[in-house]
């Protein structure tokens, strides 16, 4: 039951894009087409889950025993950057087809603050390893959901006749605002 609450909370109630404002740059940047949004979502789910696992272990077995908690930010971002690079190399070697689908998005993920944000949130909210991984996975699914929903809306919006000054980013931001309003309907669910 508790797991169910974590999952619903992370996907809908505290959606990482619409209520926490993490990962907005790629959210606005790669949401022009549904196909790229799907690719990016896949890469994000993969990297967030993996990064949370690794950073959790580093925090628990290296930083805390040696009293180095203040190195959290530096060590996490370095680990995430090298992890992304490693995932890229491994995917290229083992499953070229998956690499074709996710490859272009991987370098973008290092600067996606959602990855570092989730890794730090898991530590701050005192999750266990299992709970933290479920939380990270569900949050990433929530990110993917937001990205794909938004890409679908933007594809339709291309065909609309928007006022000149609103074209591009402004109308995208306003759409995101309305979508965030819709997501507010989930608050109080958990």
């Amino acid at each position: 039951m508790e797991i169910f609450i974590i999952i619903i909370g992370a996907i809908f109630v505290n959606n990482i894009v619409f209520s926490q404002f993490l990962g907005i740059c790629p959210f606005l940047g790669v949401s022009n087409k549904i196909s790229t949004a799907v690719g990016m979502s896949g890469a994000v789910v993969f990297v967030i889950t993996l990064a949370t696992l690794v950073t959790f272990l580093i925090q628990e077995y290296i930083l805390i025993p040696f009293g180095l908690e203040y190195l959290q930010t530096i060590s996490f971002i370095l680990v995430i950057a090298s992890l992304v690079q490693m995932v890229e190399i491994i995917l290229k070697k083992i499953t070229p087809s998956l690499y074709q689908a996710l490859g272009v998005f991987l370098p973008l993920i290092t600067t996606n603050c959602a990855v570092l944000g989730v890794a730090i949130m898991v530590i701050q909210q005192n999750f266990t390893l299992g709970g933290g991984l479920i939380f990270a996975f569900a949050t990433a699914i929530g990110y993917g959901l937001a990205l794909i929903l938004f890409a679908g809306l933007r594809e339709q919006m291309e065909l609309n006749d928007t006022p000149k000054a609103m074209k591009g980013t402004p109308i995208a931001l306003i759409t995101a605002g309305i979508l965030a309003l819709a997501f507010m309907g989930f608050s109080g669910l958990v």
Partner: protein
Amino acid sequence: MNQLQNFTKGFIKESPTFVLMLGMCPTLGVTTSAVNGLGMGLATTAVLVLSNIIISCIKSLIPDKVRIPAFIVIIASLVTVVQMCMEAYLPSLYASLGLFIPLIVVNCLILGRAEAFASKNGVWSSFVDGAGMGLGFTFGLTVLGMVRELLGNYAVFGHKLVQGDGILVFVLAPGAFLALGFIVAFINAIRKKA
């Protein structure tokens, strides 16, 4: 380009918040009030100025292939310093900015300036560029914070102008997107006419 133009470009022409759309996460996340926006902007400015200075000093020592990881290490160390100072001297601001302080590391504005400017220019121009861009970012965040606070709470910098609750949605998450969207549209409309 002279130093004055170099300094002022961050405010209007290349405003990170309203034109380049860089560093969107803190822009939307912390601007529930003008004070928070100002605090976040100044913290980012401090990191940006110092990282620009350091990177332009050691740019010839960093091998080209590992420059991005090297920049990230420099930025992350500076963020940790800022984080610790803030926790010690401004605990209430630190609490309200929360997660977004460590996330200054992945603010694309800072890495972007390091890569596009500080790694190619001298120390003095890098300092001016960092200060201009940082203060431009601060300006953008403060304006957005003021608009949201004014509409959502009828207040400016915490001082109530009109009694009452305001349009609550502007302080909540959706208001961030809506307010920024309308401000950017407004600026676009002026730029197109001029």
